[in-house]
């Protein structure tokens, strides 16, 4: 479904990605691990067309997307739950959700209403707060809103950038339960996480990024069990 082949991305003269290749198949949850400055966020930005690679290719459903502007990439069916949520704080919860459905311009109002219902069913709290400004929500509620907003686009591929960051442990479990639910409903998911143990717990496969290169690629199970990986990349002693 999504394939990156030898992608090289520069920020000015800095080579942030030095030939990244990875693949996400239909229906999977794939986890991208790595420490700070390993290139995780750059990978996300490259997929979304927020930066364009200087070499290599990004393909989505068989078509190259690496030259497209961001708004075109997302119209093809990729949504993002960004790092630090980044909801629109000066819009109501309801307006935030409508922003999510913007890529489906021209969709019948009934479809959008149905998507709203689905979002509210997944996160009942959002229905209660529909008319509240996004900025007044708690961190956990904002994360729910960010996920619901991304789902409003009916994405076929959902990118999640550090969904557990800044959340209390109980909320982290809740968020990952929801990620599994969304995946169960047919959405393919690529999740970038520092919290490797939790992420690998729900993923099928995992990639480990280091210094802009994929250094390890295996099934989630194997990654979770491999001692040297736990020590080196999962922050255990």
């Amino acid at each position, binding site marked *: 479904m999504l394939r990156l082949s030898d992608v090289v991305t520069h920020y000015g003269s800095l080579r942030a990605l030095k030939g990244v290749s990875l693949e996400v198949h239909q229906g999977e949850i794939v986890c991208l691990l790595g420490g700070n400055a390993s290139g995780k966020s750059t990978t996300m930005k490259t997929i*979304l067309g927020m930066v364009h690679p200087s070499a290599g290719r990004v393909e989505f459903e068989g078509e190259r997307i690496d030259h497209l502007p961001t*708004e075109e990439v997302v119209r093809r069916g990729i949504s*993002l739950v960004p790092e630090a949520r980044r909801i629109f704080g000066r819009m109501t919860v309801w307006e935030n959700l409508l922003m999510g459905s*913007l*890529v489906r311009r021209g969709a019948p109002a009934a479809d959008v209403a149905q998507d709203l219902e689905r979002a509210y069913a997944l996160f009942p709290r959002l229905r209660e707060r529909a008319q509240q400004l996004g900025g007044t929500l708690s961190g956990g509620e904002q994360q729910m809103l960010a996920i619901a*907003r991304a789902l409003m*686009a009916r994405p076929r591929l959902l990118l999640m950038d550090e969904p557990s960051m800044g959340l209390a442990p109980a909320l982290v479990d809740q968020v990952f339960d929801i990620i599994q639910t969304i995946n169960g409903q047919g959405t393919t998911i690529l999740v970038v996480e520092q919290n490797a143990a939790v992420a690998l717990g729900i993923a099928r496969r995992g990639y480990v990024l280091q210094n802009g290169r994929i250094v390890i690629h295996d099934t989630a199970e194997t990654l979770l069990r491999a001692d040297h990986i736990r020590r080196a990349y999962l922050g255990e002693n």
Partner: protein
Amino acid sequence: MDVLRILPQQLVFGLALGTVYGLIALGYTMVYGILFMINFAHGDVFMIGSYLGWGVLAALINAHVGLHPGWVVPLLLLVAMTGSGLLGAGLERFAYRPLYARGATRLGPLISAVGASIFLQNAVMLTQGARMKVYMTNLLFPRTWRVQVAGVNISVLVVVMMGVALLMMLGLHLLVQRTTLGRSIRAVAEDREMAAIMGVNVRRIIAITFFLGSALGGAAGVLVGLYYTQIDFFMGYSAGLKAFTAAVLGGIGNIRGAMLGGLVLGIVESLAVTFVNPAFKDVIAFLILILTLVFRPTGLLGESLPDWEKV
């Protein structure tokens, strides 16, 4: 007492002037809200709108058609708003975007705007002459057309002026708050990158914002032309500064703030004319600007001061 007798008149006049300041201020504040730049050529976009309206009115008078404000005023507004709107969008495309799209500092587009302002003033001076043009307002609104509102005798023109300005503000408010386009504008103003991730074509939204703000400026140009009857190529300078003051007073970047700032400034000015000395009108307007900047730099409704870190 004489002053008390003319006070209601002056207040009404201040309100009318204030709505027009507000209309111009909206252009500054919308552009600032979305691009964090002060469009110093906005006053000249307003001036061009005034000239466009004058041109249409003069042509109608030459054509000896029967003039009635019921259709002439909307026509003047339509032409001025379209022309000014396109001019504003053109400035963005050719004078500002080439700079900010290449990562120039914020000073770049600002200086470019000052240059555009000088260019527009001189272009009008060279093509239209430096002498003032006269709006033949009397042919549209005879001096005898006056109405009594709550015991105050005011001319129909002032009522129309205020009505048009308020209608436009209401229209803009509804557009920004209730429509998909308005949501996209607000999204770009709040977080441009995230708006793009939501599928918003950011460049298009910036161009539309310039068009809308400039169109409102063009409308104000027609209203000011009709009211003061004399216009010249330099009129955008002081009107632009006043409206900029109104925008800062209300809280730059805040749409409701621009409207409020315009009203406050208009009323304060007309009170100054009444109670102090007409010569001090501008002094008081800029005193307000200075006091605002010193004591409440975010403006009256400035709760939404942009996050400078994100820019």
